[in-house]
């Protein structure tokens, strides 16, 4: 019977020197959050109303509140937004509100010296307006699946090439994002010990992503041509159906806000 040599029975004393790989973690987190949002958007149940009406409402609220200097009107606009927000499902509601609050809090920090050192503290309005605009944009985003967004833009008669590019960007964001996540994970697994050349490693990941994106472009063109693509793209538009109750409600709110803006005026 042979026994193990003593050197083989010993514990390996190898301890890799510690290194900070925060750039990989942060990049992983960034891409994961984008992918998470894409998946969430794809899973968003199709709301009853028209995306175009929601887009018009969002743009109207953002423009009117931005132009207005009247505190009462801004309060009115914000109330209308909160009512629309309250009608969203809880998850979508939290997505919109958390982003709005984060942008608003950042604006508060930026504007704090101006708020503290001016009388009256007019800069508070600046913070409220920033919160309101971010909330409006995120309410739209959280309540509208992406495919509907491009359909709404197509209904506004934006050029086909623009819609095609936008559509493709959303799709490939998901595909290339998955690839980026895989590349970063493998870099994370292979990073044992100290890596003195982190930037080169990151250059490899992002560079591979670029080379792959060029291949994707070639492949998708071949696929498009096989399906008869000849350079002209007519995006699908929103179908005209009976207007939903939510659409009528939003359109009435739009009209009400426009009238309030007209009567309350711009000045404070």
């Amino acid at each position, binding site marked *: 019977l042979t026994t193990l040599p003593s050197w083989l029975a010993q514990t390996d004393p190898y301890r890799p020197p510690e290194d900070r790989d925060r750039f990989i973690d942060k990049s992983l987190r960034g891409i994961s959050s984008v992918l998470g949002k894409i998946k969430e958007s794809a899973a968003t149940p199709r709301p009853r109303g028209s995306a175009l009406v929601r887009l018009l409402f969002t743009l109207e609220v953002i423009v009117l509140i931005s132009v207005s200097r009247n505190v009462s009107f801004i309060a009115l606009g914000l109330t209308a937004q909160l009512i629309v927000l309250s009608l969203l499902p809880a998850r979508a509601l939290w997505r919109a509100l958390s982003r709005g609050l984060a942008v608003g809090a950042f604006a508060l920090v930026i504007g704090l010296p101006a708020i503290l050192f001016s009388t009256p503290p007019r*800069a508070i309005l*600046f913070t409220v307006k920033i919160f309101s*605009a971010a909330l409006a944009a995120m309410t739209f985003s959280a309540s509208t699946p992406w495919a509907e967004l491009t359909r709404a833009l197509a209904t506004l008669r934006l050029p086909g090439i623009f819609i095609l590019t936008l559509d493709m960007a959303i799709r490939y964001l998901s595909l290339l994002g998955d690839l980026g996540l895989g590349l970063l994970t493998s870099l994370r697994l292979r990073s044992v010990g100290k890596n003195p050349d982190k930037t080169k490693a990151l250059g490899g990941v*992002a560079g591979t992503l670029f080379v792959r994106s060029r291949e994707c472009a070639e492949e998708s063109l071949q696929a498009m041509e096989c399906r008869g693509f000849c350079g002209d793209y007519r995006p699908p538009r929103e179908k005209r159906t009976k207007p939903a109750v939510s659409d009528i409600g939003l359109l009435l709110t739009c009209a009400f806000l426009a009238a309030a803006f007209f009567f309350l005026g711009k000045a404070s």
Partner: protein
Amino acid sequence: MHIPDNYLSPVTCAVLGAAMLPVWALAVKNVKKEITRERLPLLGIGAAFSFLIMMFNVPLPGGTTGHAVGGTLLAALLGPWAATIAISIALLLQALLFGDGGILSFGANCFNMAFVIPFAGYFIYKAVKDRVKSQTGELIGLGVGSYVGINLAALCAAIEFGLQPLLAHDAQGLPLYCPYPLSVSVPAMLIPHLAVAGVVELLFTVAIFAFVKKTAPETIRVAASPKTKPLFILLFALICLSPIGLLASGTAWGEWGQDEIASVSSNGNALGFVPAGMKTGINLQTLMPDYSLSGLPEAVGYILAAFAGAAILVIAFKLMSMLLSRNGVKKTES
């Protein structure tokens, strides 16, 4: 650098959005010429790539990280016009779907990140690359271009912020949008960009470009030199905007005239006298004192002065480059 809504007044947003319209139109025209139908999907995929590289964090000395924009990188890989379109689409997605950057300020964000960065970066990259013909020269050009590009964009954003108290205020003179003047906004934006964000952009751009150049050089677009037309359009727009200076009360720091120097204050104390050297020194009589011409409104005077100044500079630089190239020819002949 993504400016959310309401940091800039709607008028500023409209002006910068209008400034971007001809740039987008030219970009589409040029990309159609350069990128044939075979490469059409590249634009959308380029936009997705542009979006994703903004998610990558670059390691910095000391353990901190920062994320890059990648404008100069895209300009070098796809060409500046395609980069403008790709970054614009990425910014639109970020504004509409992720709440990153405003919807009204979309034009301003595109101006800073989709126009200034790729074009400034690309021109510097090309200028260095054409003069230092080696791979190191190419990478140095790219590094300098990306560093200058992002800092120039930060300066543009700072100027946009800093002009707000002058452009939009209420009856009591209190600002309605970004409340800080240029004296605050320029250092607040430029110091972190010069120290951190510029370095991040430089490292990121050079690392990726070197990798792609080594592993798949055929994917890098053979760059045709872009025309200088867009620069002239930008120059024209800046000339038209020059009367904005009229909104500022007082004279620029260090540009006081004899009649103003006595009232200049330091630490709350007025100077109270005119320095002797200024009294007896040369008093140059210019053709257009204070950019005004008698019989014309002040704003028209400003625009005329800006046109004249720009034309004189262009003439001077053309003559200089002609002389330099002649000397160069003589040297090579001898």
